[in-house]
């Protein structure tokens, strides 16, 4: 069963509706998703070819229980072993995988768990990505915070005790320019020890500028590495260009960022292939940029405003757990983030096995931290959310819960030098 993504807002004009329907129904009306648009930097890189040649030939039905057991017994997990661990044949071995993953996590990260929170500063978007609440055809309250409002939000978050922040925007260069984001980073450095970005992909010199403004970590979700599927989900806008997005993390590292985050949105396409691609994307980039810190996350599709039926299809918690364990066994040194899309019980369980970083005090809306944190009625406008979160624990609650699970919450592990 596929998700049904297309929702028509009553507020769209006849012309807009006509264009939307054409994009949805007539592939020839869409731009070539493999072709760069004007202004997009092209870097010379062999990473994409390395990753995709492995992914394209991956036939997970080929792996047997014997391959899985061998993978679990090997001291170092090879790419072949990793492929076996991601296969359906590994499902009956999930407990053993979890045991091994836990041992690796403990060796590399001890009993620590990092806490952070996202801050959405704008939800304008120029793209039509059919599964996303921010998509340009979705009828939601749009908002872009000004610097004063951003500072207020940061203050509220900082007062809660949080020291690491992830700044997010919808993907609109015209509404949320690189300079606007840069100014937000400068403000963030006043309140936080560590500033990450999850914004639209930009060129190397722009990443360099944002790094100088105080950002140090760039996360870009590829959404799906299946280019044909990608084409049917990202119908309009800059985000439609798949290869420019693929090279984002490399451009970020070239621009001087300390680290990069990677992810596919599980549920959009074949999740085993997407999981393989995400991990290999990290694996090959790490070999090329050995000093860089890398992290993976594993979000699943969630319902959005005006479409509460969107779901992650065949990626249930069991499969998600399998993917996360396989990631950990294959790359023991990589940070793994599990978002508030997942339930409290899942997050409590997975931090003891494979995850090293979780968000708390999360809002995916705009300008609503004070009302969400204090229950105080908002006196200003608020922008709607990107997706529905599942685990809504506050920073305090999360800190206490993690401590109660026997873990040591870490709020900052980085020093700007």
């Amino acid at each position, binding site marked *: 069963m596929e998700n049904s993504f297309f929702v028509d807002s009553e507020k769209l004009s006849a012309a807009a509706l006509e264009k939307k329907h054409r994009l949805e129904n007539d592939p020839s009306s869409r731009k070539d998703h493999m072709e760069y648009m004007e202004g997009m930097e092209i870097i010379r890189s062999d990473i994409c070819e390395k990753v995709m040649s492995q992914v394209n030939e991956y036939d997970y039905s080929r792996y047997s229980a014997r391959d899985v057991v061998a993978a679990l017994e090997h001291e170092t997990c090879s790419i072949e072993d990793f492929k076996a661990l991601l296969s359906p044949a590994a499902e009956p071995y999930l407990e053993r995988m979890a045991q091994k993953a836990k041992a690796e996590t*403990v*060796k*590399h*990260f*001890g*009993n*620590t768990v990092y806490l952070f929170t996202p801050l959405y500063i704008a939800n304008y978007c120029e793209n039509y990505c059919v599964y996303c609440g921010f998509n340009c055809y979705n009828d939601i309250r749009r908002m872009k915070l000004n610097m004063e409002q951003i500072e207020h939000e940061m203050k509220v978050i900082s007062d809660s*005790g949080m*020291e690491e922040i992830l700044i997010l925007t919808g993907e609109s260069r015209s509404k949320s320019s690189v300079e606007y984001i840069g100014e937000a980073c400068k403000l963030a450095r006043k309140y936080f*020890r560590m500033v990450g970005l999850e914004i639209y992909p930009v060129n190397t010199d722009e990443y360099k500028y944002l790094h100088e403004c105080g950002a140090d970590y760039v996360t870009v979700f590829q959404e799906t590495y299946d280019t044909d599927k990608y084409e049917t989900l990202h119908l309009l806008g800059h985000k439609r260009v798949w290869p420019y997005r693929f090279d984002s993390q490399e451009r970020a590292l070239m621009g001087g960022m300390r*680290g990069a985050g990677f992810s596919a949105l599980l549920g959009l396409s074949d999740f085993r292939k997407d999981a393989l691609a995400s991990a290999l994307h990290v694996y090959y980039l*790490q070999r090329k940029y*050995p*000093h*860089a*810190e*890398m992290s993976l996350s594993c979000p699943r599709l969630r319902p959005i405003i005006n479409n509460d039926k969107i779901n992650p299809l065949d990626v249930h918690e069991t499969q998600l757990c399998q993917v996360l364990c396989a990631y950990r066994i294959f790359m023991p*040194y990589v940070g793994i983030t599990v978002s508030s899309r997942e339930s409290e019980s899942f997050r409590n369980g997975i931090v003891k096995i494979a995850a090293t970083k979780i968000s708390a005090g999360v809002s995916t809306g705009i300008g609503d931290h004070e009302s969400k944190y204090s229950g105080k009625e908002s006196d200003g406008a608020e922008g709607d959310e990107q997706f529905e979160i599942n685990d809504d624990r506050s920073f305090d609650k999360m*800190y206490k819960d993690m401590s109660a699970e026997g873990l*040591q919450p*870490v*709020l*900052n*592990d*980085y*020093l700007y*030098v």
Partner: protein
Amino acid sequence: MENNDKLVLGGKEFSSRFILGSGKYSLSLIEAAVKYAGAEIITLAVRRANTKEHENILDYIPDNVTLLPNTSGARNAEEAVRIARLARELGCGNFVKIEIMRDSKYLLPDNNETIKATEILSKEDFVVLPYMYPDLYSARELVNAGAAAVMPLASPIGSNKGLATKEFIQILIDEIDLPVIVDAGIGRPSQACEAMEMGAAAIMSNTALATAGDLPMMAAAFRAAVEAGRKAYLAKPGRVLTRGASASDPLTGFLHN
């Protein structure tokens, strides 16, 4: 005799030869390391100490314990130097453990950059303890650069694999006139004991303790192991066969016939 057997670093004497590494910190770990392992030196990652976090690690370090701030997170000599200076400003004293890693996968130290940082910081009156890959040439350069000790790794950090670099550490112990503190990879008390028996001046460990089922008991086990190894070293091991048998009739007996 034992009472006079002190570890001397930067003119400061220590009775304990177990140093608690940083990285996987918790209050209970510090408590166990001090109380049961007898640790007198505790490493502290400056990147984590520099925080407004409610449970600031600094508040929990007993007064009689010497802080050893480390420069983890530094990717070159310049960054390490800046972190060391910041540590001193934060009131962490003048001991510093230099850690410079340019590989996020194995976290292996970069000896060249470490030598550069050692030279700068020792001139600024830091007591410099450099974490290094056990290479004799680098160790000699660290001595010349003003290090107070050298800290070779036993095996990759966090691996608990023990003395994978044993032969090379032995060379450093034999050739370097500074305390050799074995750092990283010590997973079991028996491995700590072995390193001490070889003549290491001290051992540093974290993961082995942090991940133990019973922290206090493991801490006590490390203390006993380090002390046993030290005593064995001081006692000068006697006839220990490493392989095969030895002839009971001397091979050179013919010289005396």
